[in-house]
């Protein structure tokens, strides 16, 4: 039950569904961590734009996929992109592409 959000959408009390990693794959924050307001600043310092939180919304289309499937789909998309979303419309594009891969291959 993962939902991709941007740092602008971070709210106190949200829980990380997947670990936050840097571009070298090193874990910066572990899964299940409860986020606080200070994490916005930390993410900005680390250059992290998006991360996965736990989402309890039953309508989320990604709910039907496992954490592993989401990670695989994410890796596959990012390998083809070679760039990271820099604004909310590009995050929408990314989200759309991710959902497309999950539906097509998993």
């Amino acid at each position, binding site marked *: 039950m993962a939902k991709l959000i941007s740092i602008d959408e971070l709210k106190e009390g949200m829980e990380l569904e997947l670990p936050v990693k840097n571009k070298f794959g090193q874990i910066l924050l572990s899964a299940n961590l409860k986020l606080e307001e200070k994490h916005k600043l930390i993410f900005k310092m680390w250059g992290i734009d998006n991360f996965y939180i736990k989402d309890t919304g039953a309508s989320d289309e990604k709910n039907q996929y496992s954490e592993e499937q989401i990670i695989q789909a994410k890796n596959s*998309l990012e390998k*083809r*992109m*070679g*760039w990271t979303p*820099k*604004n*909310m*419309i*590009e995050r*929408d*594009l990314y*989200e*759309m*592409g991710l*959902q*497309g*891969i999950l539906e*097509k291959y998993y």
Partner: protein
Amino acid sequence: MNVTEKIMSGVNNLPTLPTVYSSLTEAIENPKTSSDKLANIISNDQVSVFKILKLVNSPFYGFRGKIDTISQAILHLGFNEVKNTVFALSVINFFSKDKILLNFRPVDFWAHSIAVGIVTRIVGAEIGEKNLENYFLAGIIHDIGKLIFLEYAHDEYVKVLELVESKRCFIKDAESEIMGIDHSHAGQLLANKWKLPQSIQNSILHHHKGIVGNETDLLVASVHVGDIVSRMLELGYPGDNLVPEPNHKVWDILKISKGFFPQVRKRLINDFSQTIRLMLVD
């Protein structure tokens, strides 16, 4: 003769536009031509009539079975949109679908092009563009230069496709490296020879950058986004499987609302699967 000269010579020797399109263009320039006369010109080509009626009654245009004749299609869509659809169908038939090179199949190429046409038109509608008639066509023919290469520089294009595989690079970069020009330039040469409107020529030439100099061009920006969305969703195959980074200036030009892309994804995929069936099946 180098590759660029070969391409120039090939384009110069290409036949002129399909007859039905030329007749329609001439007819529309005459203010006395009635819509019945225009419908008659299109009706001479029964294959086009059948496909156009199927297309306008598909969910993409949204008329859902209400349009029975070309005259009605002209009434609802406008003459230029119908003329452009005739043209798009003619261009798809103009080039051979059998020239398969390595993993590059013209059918997959057209599927990508049609996807770009669909996304471009949906983006045009989202941004409130009233004059949508060129959007679908501009998307469909934005990569037409690749077929010129396939037709007139076959051996070099094999090298291009091999380079794409070995370097995992964009096909436009491999084209530039091997042939000296990329498909946007080759396509514009053809569009110019066919005397297509400047807006369409611009969308072919500038679709990688998404902008034309410092000017705001909604059509060029929409085709740029259409290409990225179609690649992201893997609709068809444009010759490489990479997703280019959008030019950030297009977001200022288009002002697309947040949530738009995830919301339209299912509709895009549905429109795509129905439209390729209609346009690519002989």
